[in-house]
């Protein structure tokens, strides 16, 4: 039912939308703008003279590196994520059931961990090349060795294999819940399996791919650990060089904000590209029937399906386990530290997840479409602004937050007469920082969930006299449960792995698993951090498996 066909007086106008929700969304968007505003203020304190140096010597290389890295990772995560999602949805083969959740496991591995794990595994004196040399009969790496991982291709490889689950997750849900009836229609009209995938499933999955791939690409763009480690000079690395090596925070802020503008432009472009498309589905959600594979085809499916899991999770996790067992004697001494770090990590991540999800719900609900016409929607504008925190590097966001946080602390001190710093002296700063950083993840997931619920449901509910909030509680929240769970778990895993903002904003005597690992890694003795790295991966496993259970079971 189109609202535009309703009498004018029946249409849901401003107040019916729920002005309170809009105000809440605006407040959250404003909060996210605070650190960006602080950065912009910093950026004003530099002249533009450094741009001529950048334009001549830095930007050509950094731009082409960044573009190549993004293109490569984008292609890889889309291929792996969509391919794997289609494989486990459309076909039945041995181990498929385990694979559906195992494909999410790389989410538990932070990019900085996989980079050093692979550098070690693939080093000329590492296990893989040593085995190859033994097979080929060479004695020394001086006689034979593979190309160095420290290259743009190496970076694409490691980032692609840990970030594809974002695409896998969103497309898998899409394939399962939405496509079934359409896919079957296409089948009955005579299209083959491949034809269905290319002509129906892929176009249908485009919003899901866009959501997943944009998360993966933003992580790539803002990555500093893996890029620096593998020697890829990206734009983000040049922001760091300008800030740290040349002590020029103002100029660094200028570069970071310019990057942010480009990112926003690209996201708007993609959204504009599918502006006229609607994806809501009023049919009962029903999974498609997978086709049973036999013989060689089944074997091929097993091999193809498990490759991403092996590369993105099993190999680095195995490496961490081996390195940890070599240092078992150290674990006794650090177990108290480990427990402290673990409990701090869980408490902060859990609190941040709850706040992020709550804010995400407010923002997404305020921005929902009430009618099919695409006019300016203030709620949606708030949602876009609230998602900006994910588009700047973690440290840059943290620097931007320093000023507002300490300002608030000073005001609190004046008002309540308290001593010291309330926000910065507690976990409060971290929770706020995580919320601003990962709001995009929860907003994106909830929006995608809302988009699958036809507006007619709200129209019916409202016509029957229910308020906007009541409709949310009684109609949408139950329908949104899978999307909320997925959002919560993604945010939780992201918050657990978060490093740069945690390093800068945490109080005295407070370590999380990630900062503890970094403290080891900062000396260059990465393998000494294996215990902490393994703890992060293991602690991340539980939410990932939960995520798989709640989200991917949907429709079964």
């Amino acid at each position, binding site marked *: 039912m189109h609202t535009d066909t309703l009498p004018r007086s029946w249409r849901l106008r401003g107040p019916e939308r729920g002005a309170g929700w809009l105000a809440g969304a605006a407040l959250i968007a404003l909060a996210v703008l605070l650190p960006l505003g602080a950065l912009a203020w910093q950026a004003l304190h530099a002249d533009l003279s450094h741009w001529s140096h950048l334009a001549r010597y830095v930007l050509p290389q950094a731009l082409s590196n960044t573009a190549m890295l993004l293109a490569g990772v984008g292609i890889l995560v889309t291929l792996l994520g969509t391919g794997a999602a289609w494989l486990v949805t459309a076909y039945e083969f041995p181990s498929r059931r385990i694979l559906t959740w195992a494909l999410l496991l790389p989410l538990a591995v932070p990019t900085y961990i996989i980079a050093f794990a692979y550098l070690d595994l693939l080093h000329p004196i590492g296990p893989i090349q040593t085995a190859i040399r033994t097979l080929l009969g060479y004695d020394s790496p001086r006689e034979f060795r593979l190309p160095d991982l420290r290259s743009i291709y190496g970076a694409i490889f490691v980032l692609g294999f840990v970030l594809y689950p974002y695409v896998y997750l969103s497309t898998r849900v899409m394939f399962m819940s939405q496509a079934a009836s359409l896919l079957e229609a296409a089948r009955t009209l005579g299209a083959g399996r491949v034809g269905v995938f290319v002509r129906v499933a892929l176009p249908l999955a485009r919003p899901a791919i866009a959501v997943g791939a944009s998360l993966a690409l933003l992580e790539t763009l803002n990555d500093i650990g893996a890029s620096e480690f593998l020697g890829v000079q990206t734009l983000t690395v040049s922001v760091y060089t300008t800030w740290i090596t040349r002590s020029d925070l103002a100029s660094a802020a200028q570069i970071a904000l310019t990057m942010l503008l480009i990112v926003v432009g690209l996201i708007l472009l993609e959204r504009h590209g599918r502006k006229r498309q609607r994806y809501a589905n009023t049919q009962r959600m029903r999974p498609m029937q997978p086709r049973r594979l036999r013989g060689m085809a089944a074997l091929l499916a097993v091999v193809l399906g498990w490759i991403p899991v092996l590369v993105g999770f099993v190999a680095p996790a195995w490496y961490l386990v081996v390195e940890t067992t070599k240092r078992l004697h150290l674990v006794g001494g650090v177990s108290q530290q480990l427990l402290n770090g673990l409990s701090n990590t869980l408490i902060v991540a859990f609190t941040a997840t709850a706040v992020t999800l709550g804010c995400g719900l407010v923002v997404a609900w305020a921005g929902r479409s009430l009618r099919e016409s695409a006019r300016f929607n203030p709620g949606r504008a708030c949602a876009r602004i609230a998602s900006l925190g994910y588009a700047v590097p973690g440290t840059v966001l943290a620097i931007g937050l320093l000023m507002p946080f300490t300002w608030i602390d000073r005001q609190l001190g004046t008002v309540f007469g308290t001593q010291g710093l309330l926000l910065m002296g507690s976990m409060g700063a971290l929770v706020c920082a995580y919320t601003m950083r990962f709001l995009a993840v929860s907003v994106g997931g909830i929006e995608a969930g809302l988009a699958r619920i036809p507006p007619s449901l709200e129209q019916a509910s409202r016509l029957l006299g229910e308020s906007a909030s009541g409709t949310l509680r009684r109609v949408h929240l139950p329908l949104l449960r899978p999307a909320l769970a997925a959002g919560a778990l993604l945010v939780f895993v992201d918050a657990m792995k978060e490093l740069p903002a945690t390093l800068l904003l945490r109080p005295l005597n407070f370590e999380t698993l990630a900062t503890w690992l970094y*403290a080891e890694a900062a000396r260059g003795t990465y393998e000494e951090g294996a215990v902490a790295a393994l703890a992060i991966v293991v602690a991340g496993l539980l939410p990932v498996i939960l995520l798989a259970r709640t989200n991917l079971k949907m429709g079964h």
Partner: protein
Amino acid sequence: MSIRRSLLTPLCSALALAGAVLSAPALAAEEVSLYTTREPKLIQPMLDAFTKESGIKVNTVFIKDGLLERVKAEGAQSPADVLMTVDIGNLIDLVDGGITQAVQSDTLNSVIPANLRGADGKWYSLSLRDRVLYVTNDVKLDSFNYEDLADPKWKNKVCIRSGQHPYNTALVAAMIAHDGAETTEKWLRGVKANLARKAAGGDRDVARDILGGICDIGIANAYYVGHMKNAEPGTDARKWGDAIKVVRPTFKNGGSGTHVNISGAAVAAHAPHKDNAIKLLEFLVSEPAQALYARANYEYPIRKGVKLDPVVASFGELKVDSLPVAEIAKYRKQASELVDKVGFDN
């Protein structure tokens, strides 16, 4: 449920959660708070010894980037007493940022040579870190000039970390001070042409890559060799360490000293426990603390007469480049721009 109530519920729970995580730390009687960019494990033994001797509890937060920005933003409310960092450039940044204060101490002035501390008492060096040449055991080499790194005979044989890393920009800055910008640029291009792999990774990767046959020589800090050669036999680190020997290079024009960077500390401008901060600094240059620097971290002690670790002692006596370290900080920006200009890291 009305709109207002339904909006209040999430807001209230958010506030309650926020309240639950907010708890101001209790103030103990005798304590000192340390903001450090040095890895906790490296300094923890010294801090434990300090607490044991003085009864003063040390609170620490380890920060990588943004120490200056954080303390600046915290302003007069900052709990920071002592700021500790590595690299003279980073240390001078803290001073220039106005977040340190001048303190005077006869102990500090008598132990630390004048060219290794701020004349006004706004910063102090605590240990020395010489940047040396790692050489594969297969190559015989007794002396080396930093300038030789650009010699074409080392084509495809040189490993080094990113040119933009503070350890390397400090070396390039020293080169500018000795040889001038033009010669340094030419030198950088020569080194770049000799690189066996991308300028990336860490200092220990130089030793690992020498063992892996990727390169023959490389520039890295000396204390890593202490760590590697003292590692337990059979570990990877020990294998890397055993694959190399150390030569201390000097500059062609400028005496016979090796390039040295520092680790150092300063008292924070708004230190709530200034006296304890000075006590901590004085303790860090004392005989037992300096011995820990030398034997647990393999850094070169700032204090004369402290016994070295045998591995580090085997490199011979350290002759420090006569250039005052503060000079190096002056040329750091120019050095960083030269590194960009020659595309060293590309």
